[in-house]
């Protein structure tokens, strides 16, 4: 009896060691690249630190500075709200539309699917560079075509009221990920439900409203939440677009004021860079980082809520 509990305990210990061994890369990674810097970010948010003189306690000064005096914080948050409401919505609708279109296309499906998907793969810097060229007011093909058919050509990335719509076009161009997800979801809708609806004389709109939509609503939810998280973390495209359109491109520590034109492309992650690496105000940069963290985690929690079944937690 004693011997069996002993071996059982030994077995338990072995299995725990085994688990630890398999998890060890991640345990180290989690500690060094997540837990430690998170704690450190909180710490620095209460310190005055410029990277040269040793950090000194500054209480909530950084926090009040970011919320009350830092000129970029509220514009960036407003832009993020714009992106969440307009860009994410349009992208989900467009992705759903393209997904539905591809399920209806019967001839050359493979080619269409590949062509629709490819832009999603374009590296963000290259894609932004391409759109900065396509939409440039001077020689860009888009404005040339618009003027040829007599439509007034907007300034796109050079006009504060058109820069976000231009970024939205770029985001719609790279809708391939949503197309694939929606396509898979649409093909999963049971055929019998459509047949039953047809027997009942449902119009196409009714079939979409009462059969398609209820079946794919978890996927729509997934697309919206991941889209919102993406919008809050939007960095490379607005930054590169602003830099290229403004004509100010150099290495580190330049005078480029982020958000060109007129703060219209500022997003929260850019503020971390601006405060930390251009103004050397590490404390305030950490405040913005924590705001970004809180927003990201709030929406990630929404994503993980088991009831929604968006991400399968346990088994």
């Amino acid at each position, binding site marked *: 009896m004693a011997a069996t509990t002993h071996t059982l305990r030994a077995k338990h210990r072995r*299995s725990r060691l085994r688990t630890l061994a398999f*998890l060890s*890369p*991640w345990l180290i*990674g*989690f500690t060094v690249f*997540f837990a430690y*810097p998170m704690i*450190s*970010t909180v710490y620095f948010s209460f310190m005055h630190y410029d*990277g040269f003189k040793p950090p000194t306690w500054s209480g909530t000064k950084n926090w009040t500075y970011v919320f009350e005096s830092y000129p970029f914080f509220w514009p960036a948050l407003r832009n993020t709200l714009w992106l969440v409401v307009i860009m994410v919505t349009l992208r989900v609708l467009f992705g759903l539309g*393209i997904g539905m*279109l*591809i399920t*209806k296309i*019967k*001839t050359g499906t493979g080619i*269409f699917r590949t062509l*629709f*998907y490819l832009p999603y*793969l*374009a*590296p*963000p*810097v*290259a894609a932004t*560079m*391409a759109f900065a*060229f396509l939409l440039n007011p001077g*020689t860009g*093909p888009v404005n040339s075509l618009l003027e040829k058919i007599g439509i007034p050509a907007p300034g796109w990335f050079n006009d504060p009221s058109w820069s976000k719509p231009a970024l939205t076009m770029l985001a719609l*161009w790279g809708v391939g990920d949503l197309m*694939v*997800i929606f396509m*898979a*979801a649409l093909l999963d809708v049971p055929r019998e439900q459509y047949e039953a609806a047809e027997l009942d004389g449902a119009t196409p709109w009714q079939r979409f409203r009462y059969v398609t939509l209820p079946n794919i609503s*978890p*996927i729509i939810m997934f697309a919206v939440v991941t889209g919102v*998280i993406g919008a809050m*973390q939007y*960095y490379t495209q607005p930054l*590169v677009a602003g*830099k290229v359109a403004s004509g100010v*491109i150099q290495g580190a520590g330049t005078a480029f004021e982020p958000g060109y034109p007129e703060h219209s492309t500022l997003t929260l*992650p850019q503020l971390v*860079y601006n405060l930390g*690496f251009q103004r050397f105000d*590490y404390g305030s*940069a*950490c405040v913005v*980082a*924590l705001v*970004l963290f809180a927003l*990201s*985690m709030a929406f*990630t929690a929404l994503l*993980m809520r088991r009831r929604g079944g968006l*991400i*399968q937690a*346990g088994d």
Partner: protein
Amino acid sequence: MAQDTAQLLERPVELKLPATPAERTARRKALLEWIAVHSLGVAAALFFTLPFVFVFLTSLMSDSQALSRDLIPHTWEWSNYRKVFDTPGFLTWWKNTLIYAGLGTALTVVSSVPVAYALAKFRFRGRNLTLMLVISMMMLPPQVVVIPMYLFWAKQLDLSGTLWPLIIPLAFGDAFSIFLLRQFLMTIPNEYLDAAKVDGCGDLRTLLRVVLPMAKPGIAAIALFQFFNAWNDYFGPQIYASENPGAWTLSYGLESFKGAHHTDWNLTMAATVLVLAPVLLVFFFAQKAFVEGVTLTGVKG
């Protein structure tokens, strides 16, 4: 189309009756729908491909023509591509990108596989917590922890001006890869693992001999994603490599290329094509693994 019309034509032949007016309207409706759907498809295809086409055409224009509003090159200047390659630094950026993407991908796979396996198949206390932390790390923008991480790499290890601060962390598991691979490994039936155990395989042997061969598509997917991530990364090189052009990657260097060739859209577009093309080529060769990966990224139908 051939298939559809064949199907529609079949019915009256079988019945050996002339098409009733109702059937004829149905046939006409199907044809009209086919035309409508495929016209929309062509329109969408133009929206998705024309940017590539214009970029490519501009990359072949002469310097003076690139300053005009022309859409099609008068003379096809293939030498633009030679000029891009001759730009000081361009080949170094290629080399750095390949090191970052190649080494980073290899390290990611090696370090993420055992973690994903443990999360998918071992039963232990704190497993759900671990998974939730992995998902949280996956959703964490790099900017959140960049200040302490930069201070760590630059001030304590003196590694700024290199890509090592971006490569070394990948040796300790990448959250997205762990999550994606875990989703994949969940689909492997436990019977295989039990059978391996009965045959006397230890955990490591089971992983290497039984699980890995079955997990190839999942591993291919995470390798591809990681490769693309490194290729596309802009923020990482901006933070750690910006001070040293010798450590720049293509994605980072491309922007400075535009700065150096201020108005030369033709050369900038040629450089853009050279950053785009490898990704598209890799996709053509690995399409299946890629699409599988996209559908695996956490969507539960």
